[in-house]
């Protein structure tokens, strides 16, 4: 029996009077009401929900879960000479042994740690725009502009800017600070790429923040101002509590963006280097599948990435739900 059918029965049981009254009315109309047409109608009514839900379920099952199952299944088979043979957890053991994959996972950890920065920057900028710093209208469009550029173009622009003999290092050199090998130093490169990613995507978060600000009661800010609150206190005691839902939304979308759409930037800016220091799992999967001809190993890495994303996703859903309840 379906959950829908049983809940229907529960509803009936909950209102015995109503159910009785309904039956009495049917009786009143006579035996003709038990005709096959009515029964067909009832069956159609019972089936309707399934029919209506079916396309969505089919799409998810056929295009998502089934390929996912194939992928997971494939990750337990071998590559090259062992193509098609079941190898158990060999691919996963190889992943754990591979320092490159460990680096990739560690970099995911870095992304999670850098998340507050990625949220705070557009938040602060939006605050300044909201508080009408001089030229705020220009800033609004300037900050949003990178959001319309593709990662490949952004990567190419920053490749030029951040080259060892590029303009940024020329400025640094001119001001007496030594040049920094932005994309060639393994300790710096990951942060450079994340920084560029934040630059490129914070425009969208900024717009979301500005939308959130429009729901903020200006009387509260005025009151704070009258009481002589400093900017920092205003942000801490008025703006952040007032925007908690917006902030949570931006946290979730920024996290998803960081975990899923860094590939283009990495590909153009560092190709996973230097020394493999900017590998992320998706880049690793791509390299193993395409360059190393190891699709089964790539499937195993995909499965691990899927599990990581599942955990992160569930945490985020929990966060959003709690935020909804607070409201």
């Amino acid at each position, binding site marked *: 029996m379906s959950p829908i059918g049983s809940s229907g029965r529960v509803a009936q049981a909950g209102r015995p009077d109503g159910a009785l009254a309904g039956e009495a009315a049917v009786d009143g109309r006579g035996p003709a009401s038990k005709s096959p047409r009515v029964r067909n109608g009832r069956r159609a009514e019972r089936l309707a929900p399934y029919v209506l839900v079916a396309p969505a379920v089919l799409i998810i099952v056929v295009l998502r879960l089934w390929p996912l199952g194939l992928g997971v*299944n494939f990750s337990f088979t071998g590559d090259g000479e062992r193509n*098609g*043979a*079941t190898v158990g957890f060999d691919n996963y053991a190889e992943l754990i042994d591979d320092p490159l994959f460990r680096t990739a996972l560690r970099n995911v950890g870095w992304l999670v740690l850098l998340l507050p920065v990625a949220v705070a920057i557009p938040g602060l900028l939006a605050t300044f725009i909201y508080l009408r710093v001089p030229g705020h209208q220009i800033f609004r469009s300037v900050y949003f502009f990178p959001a319309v550029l593709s990662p490949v173009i952004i990567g190419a622009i920053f490749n030029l800017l951040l080259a060892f003999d590029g303009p940024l290092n020329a400025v640094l050199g001119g001001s007496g600070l030594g040049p920094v*090998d932005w*994309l060639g130093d393994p300790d710096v490169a990951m942060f450079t790429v994340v920084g560029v990613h934040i630059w490129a995507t914070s425009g969208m978060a900024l717009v979301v923040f500005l939308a959130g600000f429009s729901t903020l009661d200006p009387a509260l800010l005025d009151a704070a101002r009258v009481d002589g609150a400093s900017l920092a206190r205003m942000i801490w005691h008025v703006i952040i509590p007032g925007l908690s839902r917006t902030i949570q939304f931006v946290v979730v979308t920024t996290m998803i963006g960081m975990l899923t759409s860094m590939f283009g930037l990495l590909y153009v800016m560092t190709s996973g280097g*230097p020394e493999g220091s900017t590998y992320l799992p998706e880049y690793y999967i791509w390299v193993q599948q395409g*360059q190393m001809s190891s*699709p089964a190993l790539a499937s195993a890495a995909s499965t691990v990435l899927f599990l990581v994303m599942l955990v992160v996703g569930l945490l985020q859903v929990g966060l959003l739900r709690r935020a909804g309840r607070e409201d």
Partner: protein
Amino acid sequence: MKQRTLWSAILVAGLVALAGCGSASDPDSAPGGSKGKLVVWDWKSGDATASSYVKKAKADFAQQHPGVTVEFVAQPFEQYYTLLGAAIQAGKGPDVMLFNGGGQIRDRADSLLPLDEYVRDDKKRLAGWEAFTKDNKTYAAPVTLQGHPIYYNKSLYRKAGLDPEQPATSWDEFVADCRTITKATGARCFAQGNKEGIGIQFFLSGLGSGVLSPKEYDDWIAGRRDWSSPAVERIFALWKEADDEGLNNDGANSTAMFNDAFAVFQSNKAAHVIGLMSDVGHWKDFAEFLDADDVGVMKAPVVTAGATPRLPYDGGIGYAVAKWTKDPEVAADLVRSLTSPDALKSFHADAGAIAADRTVDVSSAGPAVATIVSEIDRGKPALHVALSSKTVDLMGRLSQQLLSGSVTVDSAVEQLAASDRAG
């Protein structure tokens, strides 16, 4: 939340339970074009410079098999092996496909048809077969040759008061010349780009014949690589030394070989670059910026006594036939048409490649090409091409670590030896 976690757990458990029930791909599937049609995959046929080559090859093939249509599908090179791998895995690969020589084709050899019986008559005319050979079976016919000559800028030599026609033959002289050039012109010795980890491949192959003894060199190519040999270690130590002593341009690890390092050479900021013979980063590209007569090609300077410098080259790109093609003979004939003398002549002239065909006349292409071609007969396969793609990938990362000082030469060579043994 709790229910969601439960469902996720059930989903994961279900997937794991399903696991290992068999391969997602069918290793014995038989795709490809239908009878009367051949599908060719490459990354060249879309280029304007290759159009006359493709036209001539098609015409040659149509003469032999008028009823068979040929469809060229040009894929973007960056995605090529990813797409090809996926297509083969899904059982939807093409009949004939282009490969780079070396690791890529050897990794895929089990999907390819050995061509030896079909290309017997071409063996003499074409060079570069070894790069497409695995276990004594030939899997593709070479179209171009690819190698790593050391190019130098004759005008910088002249400005520094050196004789541009007499480049150094030993490493010490070479370094001394470089110092002279840097002092006189400010140009560095090497244009070096190792952002992709490719610089080390060029360095290893370009200079290797000046370091390894002829026997060690041949053993390396034959798969008997002695990683504990002092000469092998010397190459990687040299790689580090060259950077430490300022022979390279600054920031080699963040300079892309394609094409920032070549741009450094072309703009007179470095006197030498280990480049390519075909496609890009070669005589034709350099001659667009420098005078063609100023682009010289020199032999590798001798580092250890007894080494014999040779031009390192292999088959560059070549067409292979898939195992599952309906009519292997027809597909092999297409490969022969794609390597016919007429077609290759166009390829050399238009695309700026050293064609695999030794009979192609190159006299109009400038002195650098003349030097390269004169060295082909005495040339040897390049050292890095003999390594598996996994080892080459690891070497790229280790080479970056060597430059930044986060790994020692000993440890790098050890790791490479382990990767090479694992195959």
